[in-house]
Every structure is written in C-alpha cells, then in structure tokens.
C-alpha cells in the first residue's frame, strides 16, 4: 500500500475526533464519506471491498427513501452514492433522488443534485425527461435540455456575461447534437461574436469553428480579433502565464486555417497576423509552443507564402530537435503533416528521424513510422515496409496492428510488387496461405489499364529472374511458389527471354534440398507452361526422368504431364493457353461428369465407393487384419487398406532399426488400434524399400530356427530370411538408409492425394535358403495416430518374377518412450509448450486408488513415465525423440480423468490423446 494511504490512516483517527467536536456539526456529513473512504482503504481484498460497499449502498438506500431525511442529509448521501459509483458499483436507486434534490433543495443542494445527475445519467436514460422539467426552473442552463432552445435563446440577452457565455456554449452543444434546430438563430451567434464581453465572444468561436465554411466574410473580423489578442488588448484576466488568451488564440488560428485553405485571397488577409503570432510566441513556455504549433499548422494549411513557410519550417526544426519529448513528438507530427508538400524538410532531419525509429517510447516510434509511410517511394519501400513489419511483430495493441496493417496494404496498392516481395521474404512461411493467393489474383486480374498490367507483370518477371539467379536457398517456400507461378504465367511477355533460361533456373529449384514437394509441384507446373522450343523440351525430359521415380505421386504425375505436354504442342496450347482468361472456372464438386464411368464400373462388378471413415469402421469391425509379425512367408494383406483416402501431412524418416520391442507393442495394441471412428486425422502412409527375396516358399519352411532371434520381429520393416549366420550386408544397407532418408525427407506434400509407394528396386542377391535381415529405424517427424509403412517385395523364382505388396500399420505408441524428468523440470517445461489439448477420459475404478491405477495402465500400455502423483493430481511425461516431449497433467474430476496434454510438437497431444483413450477404453 502506498505511503499516502498509510499516512492517511495515521492521520484519520485524529481527523475524526476533530469532526466529532461540538460546533463542527457540519463536518459530520462529510465524515460519513470519510468513514467510508477510510473503511475502504483498510480493506485488503476486492471481495471485502465489495461486501463493504454493498452494506453502504443498502444503508444509503434506506436513508434516501426515508421521508425524514433532510435535504442536507440527502446531499451528503448523494455524495456517497457518487463515490460508490466511481468505484464501479451501481447505485441506480439514487438517480431519482438526485433529480429530486436538483428540484427542491437550496442552491447548494441543487448543485450536488445536478452533479449527481450529470454523473449518473447517460444520454438515453428515461429519467432525463424528468430532468428537463426540473431544469426549466433554475436560471443556469444545463446542457441536457435539447428541446429548450427558446429558453436558452432568451438567456443570450441576460445582463450578466457569465450567463450569456454559458448560454452560447449550451447552444453550441445543441448545434453539435442537432444542427438543424438552431439554424434560425444564426444571427444570434453573430451577435454573440460581437458581444462586449470577450468571454462571450470566445464561447461563440466554438460554434464558428464548426460551421465556419459559410462565413468567409468574417475572415477580416477574425483577423482583427486575433491581432488585438496578440498585441495584448484583452483584460489581464485572460492572460495565462503572461501569454494573452492562449485558448482564444488557438481557436482563432484553427478557424483561420479552415478559412484560408485553398483560398488565396482569404489567405492573404491573414499573412500579417500569422507572422506577428510567430514573432510574439517566443517565451520558453509550453503555452507558447502550443500557439506556435497551431500557427505552423495554419501556415501549412492555407495558401502558401514562402517566407512564412520558411519560418514555420524553422519552428518545426526546433520542435524536432528539442530535448523535450513532447515537443519532439509534435515536431514529428508536424513533419508528417507537411512532408507531402515539402519532402526536403524530412531530409534535413533524417538523422533525428532514424534515431526516433529506435526510440524506447512506442508512441514516438509509431509517429516516425507514420512519417515514413508518408514519404514512401519506389526506392525506400523495402526498408520502410520492413520497419513496419518489425513494429507489427512487437505490437500487442490491436488498434495499432489494424492501423499498421492497413498502411502496409495501402503501400501494397501503390507499389504492389515491392511490398509483397518484402512481405513474402520477411513474413516467410508464417504468412497466411491466402495472402499469396490474393496477390496472384491481383496480378492475374490486374488493374484497369492493360498497359499498367503488362508493365507490372514484366517487372515481376524481371525481378524474379534476378532473384532466382541469386541465392535462392533462403527464400521461403510460399515465395518460391509465387515466383514459379509468375514465371510460368508471364515469362512469355518478355520476348527476348529464352524459356530455356527460365527452365534452367527452375530446375535449380527442383534440385535444392530445401524445396518442399508442394513447391516442386508448383515449379513443375510452371515448367509445363514454359516448355516450348528445342532446349526447353530437352530440359523437361531430363527433369521428368529424374522425377518419374519420385516417391511423391503428385510429383510423378506432374512430371509425367510435363513430359507428355512438352512433346504435344497442340494439346499444350489448348490446355494452357498463353493469356488465360480470368473467367472463373466452374468446379463440379459432385464430380457428376464421372457418373457414366462409375455406373459402367459398377455394372462390371466393381464394389461401390465407400468413404474412408466407413472403410475404416468396417475394417475395425472385421478385426481380421493380421498384425502378427511377419513370418517367413509374408502375409499378404496389402489390398485391404491400400486406398485410405486423403493423405495427411506426415513426415517420417527411415534411418535405423525398429526394435523388436516396439513390434511387440504394436501387436499388443493391435486388436484395438484399428478402430478409428471419431478420429479426425487421416493418417499418412509411407512406402519404403523392401528386399528382393529370392527365397522360395518351400525353402522358407526349412529354416525356422533363426526366427527366435529378436531381429525376426523387424519383419515389419522388410525381412528376408537367412538361415546362415547373418550375412552382413553393410553396403546396400547404408545405401538404403541414405535412400530412405532422402525419400522421406520433405515428403509432406499437403496436396498429394495418391498412395505413396516405394519404387526403388534393389538388386541384391541373397543366396537361396537364406535369410537376410535388414534393419531400419523410423523416426517421427510429424505425429499422427497411426503410421502406415508400405513396401513392395519382388523376387524371382524359376525365371519368373513375383511382386508382393505389403503394408504395415504402426501406431504412434511404438514411438513413445518414457521421459524421465523431475517435477521442477516438468513445471518449467509445461509453460513453455504451446500445443495443448484437453479431454476427460475413463477412470480405472476397480482398485482403491483409481488415479494411480489409471496412470499405471497408461504407463504399461503406452510406455509413459509417471513423474509424480499428489492427491488427486498426477503428472506424466513421455517423448518421441530427445527434444520432442509431451507432458500430461491428469486430475480426477467428477468421476473422470481430466487430462491436459502439452507439447512443443504440433499434433502430438492430439494423437497421443487418442491412444490414451484407447488404452483406457478396454478397462
């Protein structure tokens, strides 16, 4: 608690004793407020305060509604009610009494009454009408009586100037609320302007500021008034820190700037007085700066005059260079204001502006950005947008963000390409996918003039070619996609550009390791559009050769298209016309054009289509899928789950051995893992290389012995049999590992719709009657509920080649390892992880301690580590790889186990939760 409050507390008791002295009865009224305030300061919690205030309000309510309460007590009660409202508690019962007080009390009571009313009631309150009637009695006009203009009008003639002044201000308020209602008394305003009391004149300026446009003829009068004010003709009363009537001056300057805007003859009348104002305002005080600032604004608004502009520029310079931060801010603001007319001024203050850009005060920083925004041109745009985005990253205030984003967008409209290039390369892959889309739309639909469009597109092509010729490694994927689209679409606009050159550049992208497969498909599409001419076709051919064996079916498909279309010119120009119309394509989402094909297939005996989830359900019901570790003869269950619909982005890399332990686990969980209803994510699948198996079935039967070795379990990842002491095959194995890892890296194409299969053929010969064991390790890059491993085995027997496809499904649990951490470490990590999910799960209820039992089941089935159990709460941890932990917080809530999972790895909590659910379902 602050010193002030402490001191108050020590002072209060004596204060109160003073109040209770005889003869100071008057103070007893305030002492009730005092007691209330003291009571509040003594409290320690919000809750206590609430209780106290409610008590206070209840007693207040009694007091105000009691008929015996005197006006003075009522006044005192009203003050307390205001205080309670200020603390944020409603005291609506007192509103009506406030009005009563305003009606009935003595002048002082009325005053409190009015105060309470203005604080309590808002514009739409129903009691206001009652108040209007009240107001008709006393002679001080209030600002609430909107329908009482005649009454206030009368007051304009009142002999006392303070009343006239208030009446004018009241009319000003009417004017703001309903301009039409006071139209007929405009001449009255003029009378007020000529009033012998400067105060009344000042008040009338408020009205004139609002409706000045129609009063050009008054310019000379305003100038005369200002002259008089500046030269100190007003009574001393109007001085403020020895500056004559600053409020009046500023008001007049504002009026003049409106009058002189774009009007040379009117402006000429005021040049002298402005000059005079600038000269006079030399005392080093805030108030003179205020006048100066207004003066400068005025000078830059009205029709320009050179020597005044020079003086004003000097003033701005002084502001900007000032050590006082408020003046610096205003200097920047003034610069922002004038910089469009006079960009040189900004140049003069370059260094200050740069300093302000890194100012610790965000307000200054923002104003500087605003200034930069005004001086954006084609050359500096990149830096400016960069600065703006930088600020955006740090900004937490929504209003600022919206404002800045709007500005970036505005710049983008003026300089679309430069801005978007900056946005793409800085925003990187963080930006929303629809931003590049709308940018491409902008490019293709273009602006009004065809000429502009062409220029813009050409510029885009040029700048992107330049970019690609440089270092491409650090460009974000989305930007690469945009680049390849633009090059594919618009390269032909530049006649002197050889398509083969573009093709070569694009090929470079394909060869880059960082390029994601999604980007690769964009690149391939662009190449398809481009490949015309001898050289291009040959580039296309070599690319296709490379990619025809790609793991990614989409890429393969695109490569195939490229190959075909590069050879068939007529078809290509038909499919991909050079200047494509932006006419919208009609998409037939029901695929009705395939109806004939489907019915034909059905008639031919094909099974009707089943959506993936239905297929999975059926599969789960059958439970017939064997998940036994593969025996010597590979169980062939490939077709059953070959087509599982959409591919989720799943990244896996295969590089070292699957342990027998995990294979066993998957077997254990096998009976349940296939039930997939209610699982949103569709798992991905990976194809991978399997070994040619030269072993005939007969031979396999003869070699049961080595099967007991743990290695046998690795059948999941492709096993050949070998009876003899393991023949190490290091070479091909290494080779394969490499292959495999390169295969699965980057296999995350969100758009690949087809089955992914491994088409890699290894030609290693394994002697007959032997078993070859190959080990691979899989590590999860992106978790899903199940991973699917697919492969194909081809072998030759009696000069006939056989092919066997197999798939194998690995639940995520195979990859989960216990994660040993201390409670403190757990706590530290918990807060740092951003991906989380919550759910209530079944409890194991047979034992005494259901939490421990449940967690033990989870531990057993999912291989988790129980960190600690305290009472009804337990914390559990596990991990995928070393740096991919997942933390679980469990507590018993309403008969269920409320689990909260957190992990730095996206999707891991969701996928793991699924398995937790499964594990507990059977119990």
């Amino acid at each position, binding site marked *: 608690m602050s010193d002030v409050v402490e001191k108050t507390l020590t002072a209060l008791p004596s*204060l109160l004793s003073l109040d209770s002295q005889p003869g100071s009865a008057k103070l007893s009224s305030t002492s009730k407020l005092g007691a209330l305030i003291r009571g509040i300061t003594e409290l320690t919690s919000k809750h206590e305060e609430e209780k106290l205030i409610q008590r206070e309000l209840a007693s207040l309510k009694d007091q105000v509604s009691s008929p015996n309460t005197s006006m003075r007590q009522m006044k005192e009660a009203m003050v307390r009610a205001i205080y309670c409202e*200020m603390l944020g508690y409603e005291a609506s019962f007192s509103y009506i009494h406030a009005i009563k007080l305003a009606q009935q009390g003595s002048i002082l009571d009325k005053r409190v009454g009015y105060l309470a009313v203005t604080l309590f009631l808002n514009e739409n309150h129903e009691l206001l009408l009652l108040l209007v009637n009240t107001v008709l009695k006393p002679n001080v006009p209030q600002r609430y009586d909107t329908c009482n203009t005649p009454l206030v009008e009368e007051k304009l003639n009142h002999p006392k100037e303070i009343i006239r002044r208030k009446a004018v201000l009241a009319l000003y308020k009417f004017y703001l609320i309903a301009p039409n209602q006071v139209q007929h008394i405009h001449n009255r305003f003029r009378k007020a302007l000529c009033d012998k009391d400067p105060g009344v004149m000042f008040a009338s300026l408020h009205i004139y500021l609002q409706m000045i446009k129609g009063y050009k003829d008054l310019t000379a009068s305003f100038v005369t008034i200002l002259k008089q004010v500046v030269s100190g003709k007003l009574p001393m009363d109007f001085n403020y820190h020895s500056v004559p009537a600053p409020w009046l001056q*500023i008001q007049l300057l504002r009026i003049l700037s409106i009058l002189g805007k774009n009007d040379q003859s009117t402006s000429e009348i005021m040049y002298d007085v402005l000059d005079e104002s600038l000269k006079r305002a030399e005392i080093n005080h805030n108030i003179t700066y205020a006048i100066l600032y207004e003066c400068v604004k005025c000078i830059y608004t009205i029709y320009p005059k050179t020597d005044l502009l020079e003086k004003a520029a000097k003033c701005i310079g002084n502001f900007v260079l000032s050590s006082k931060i408020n003046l610096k801010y205003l200097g920047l603001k003034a610069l922002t204001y004038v910089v469009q007319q006079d960009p040189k001024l900004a140049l003069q203050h370059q260094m200050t502006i740069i300093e302000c850009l890194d100012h610790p005060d965000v307000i200054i920083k923002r104003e500087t950005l605003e200034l930069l925004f005004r001086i954006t041109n084609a050359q500096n745009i990149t830096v400016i947008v960069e600065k703006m985005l930088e600020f955006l990253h740090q900004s937490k205030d929504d209003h600022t963000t919206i404002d800045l984003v709007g500005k970036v967008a505005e710049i983008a409209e003026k300089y679309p390409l430069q801005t978007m290039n900056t946005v793409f390369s800085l925003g990187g892959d963080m930006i929303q996918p629809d931003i590049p889309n709308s940018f491409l739309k902008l490019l293709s639909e273009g602006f009004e003039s065809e000429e502009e469009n062409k220029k813009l597109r050409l510029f885009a092509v040029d700048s992107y070619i330049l970019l690609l010729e440089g270092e491409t490694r650090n460009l974000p994927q989305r930007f690469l996609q945009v680049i390849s689209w633009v090059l594919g679409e618009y390269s032909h606009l530049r006649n002197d550009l050889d398509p083969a050159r573009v093709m070569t550049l694009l090929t470079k992208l394909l060869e880059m390791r960082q390029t994601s497969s999604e980007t690769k498909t964009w690149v391939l599409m662009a190449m398809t559009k481009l490949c015309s001419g001898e050289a291009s076709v040959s580039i296309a051919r070599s690319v296709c050769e490379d990619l025809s064996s790609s793991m990614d079916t989409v890429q393969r498909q695109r490569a195939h298209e490229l190959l075909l279309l590069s050879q068939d010119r007529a078809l290509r120009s038909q499919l991909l016309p050079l200047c494509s119309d932006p006419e919208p394509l009609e998409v037939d989402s029901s695929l009705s054009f395939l109806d004939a094909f489907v019915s034909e297939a059905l008639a031919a005996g094909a099974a009707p289509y089943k959506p993936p989830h239905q297929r999975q359900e059926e599969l789960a019901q059958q439970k017939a899928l064997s998940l036994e570790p593969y025996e010597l003869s590979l169980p062939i269950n490939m077709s059953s789950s070959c087509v599982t619909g959409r591919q989720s982005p799943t990244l896996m890399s295969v590089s070292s051995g699957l342990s027998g332990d995990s294979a066993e686990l998957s077997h254990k969980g096998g009976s349940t893992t296939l039930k997939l209803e209610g699982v949103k994510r569709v798992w991905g699948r990976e194809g991978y290389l399997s070994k040619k198996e030269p072993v005939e079935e007969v031979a396999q039967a003869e070699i049961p012995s080595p099967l007991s070795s743990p290695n046998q379990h690795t059948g999941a990842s492709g096993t050949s049999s070998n009876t003899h002491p393991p023949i190490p095959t290091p070479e091909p194995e290494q080779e394969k590992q490499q292959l495999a890892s390169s295969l699965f890296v980057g296999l995350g194409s969100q758009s690949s719709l087809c089955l992914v299969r491994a088409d890699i053929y290894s030609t290693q010969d394994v002697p007959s009657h032997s078993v070859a064991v190959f080990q691979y390790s899989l590590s999860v890059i992106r978790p899903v509920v199940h991973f699917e491993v697919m492969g194909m085995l081809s072998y030759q027997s009696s000069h006939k080649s056989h092919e066997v496809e197999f798939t194998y499904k690995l639940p995520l649990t195979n990859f989960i390892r216990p994660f040993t951490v201390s409670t403190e470490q757990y706590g530290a990590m918990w807060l740092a992880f951003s991906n989380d999910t919550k759910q209530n799960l079944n409890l194991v209820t047979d034992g005494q301690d259901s939490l421990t039992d449940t967690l033990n089941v989870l531990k057993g089935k999912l291989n988790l580590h129980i960190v600690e159990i305290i009472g009804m709460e337990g914390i559990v941890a596990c991990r995928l790889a070393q740096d991919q932990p997942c933390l679980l917080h469990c507590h018993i809530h309403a008969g269920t186990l409320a689990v909260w999972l957190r992990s730095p790895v996206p999707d891991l909590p969701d996928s793991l939760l699924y398995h937790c659910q499964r594990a507990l379902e059977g119990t």
Partner: protein
Amino acid sequence: MQFMLLFSRQGKLRLQKWYVPLSDKEKKKITRELVQTVLARKPKMCSFLEWRDLKVVYKRYASLYFCCAVEVQDNELITLEIIHRYVELLDKYFGSVCELDIIFNFEKAYFILDEFLLGGEAQETSKKNVLKAIEQADLLQEVRHKTLRRREFLWHGHISLTRQIPGPEQNMVMLVIY
C-alpha cells in the same frame, strides 16, 4: 474534449467527467484500459497517446494522473495546459492540494472543473474568476466548510502538501507528498 479522468498511481479512479454520451459499460471499459495503458508508461515518455481513435493527453502530478481524451484535430499542448490550469485551480482553492483533498472533497473538485470547463471546452480561463465563483457558492453555506482547518491538521499529521518550486517553468506548481 471527450472526457477527463483522474486516477491514482494504484489505478484507483478519483474523478471522472464525460463530455460525450457513452454507456456505463463503455465508460468502465475505457477507464480500465486507459488506466492500464497510462500506468504502464515510463516517466520519460511523452505525454500523448494515440489510443484507439482518440488522442489522450496525460500528466502526472505527484501520485495523481490527470488524463484527458481530446479529438484528433485538437492541440495537444493546450490540453496539457488545461490540465495544468485545473491543477492550479485546485491548488489555489485547497491551499496546496494533494490527492487526499480530492478524495475527501471530490464534489468540490467537480464544481471547480465545471466552472472551468463547460461541455468539454475551456469556458473560464481566469483563475481568479473561477475561484470567485466557487467561493461565492461556499459562502452560501451557513457554516463554511472546515476543509482548511482539516487541511492544517493533516499537514501536521506528516503529510506535506504542495509547495512552489522555482524552476525553469515559472510558477510551476508541484505536488509533493512525503
């Protein structure tokens, strides 16, 4: 001017005056957010804020923040002077003002503000005239407020009040609480 708020360093509202019609809910929301924003600012930062679509001008006097929201085209510096003039008025009226005066006599603080500003516009800029009006009103009371006596008492009770500090800015009144 759209509204004026007085609040303490602890974020407690001491006085509020709204010159634009707003619902109670909005008022509370604005107050809460603005108090937070202003309190988060450091002493060396500038007194102006672009906050939502308003311009906020604030100044701290001892433990009290005076905070005004004005229209975008209004002059920031003159708004600071409005605040300052109000503080001067309070100071003159209460002797040398401190936060406690405003807490215990907040209705007086309102009356002074109403004499000075009407409908959000500076209406009577003369210190003398404002105080005259208030004192006349006080005289109407049968017994004068014992505020001053009370103040003296507080003064002896360890709370020092305002004092004049001659500085670069003439007549600048500082509120000092020990």
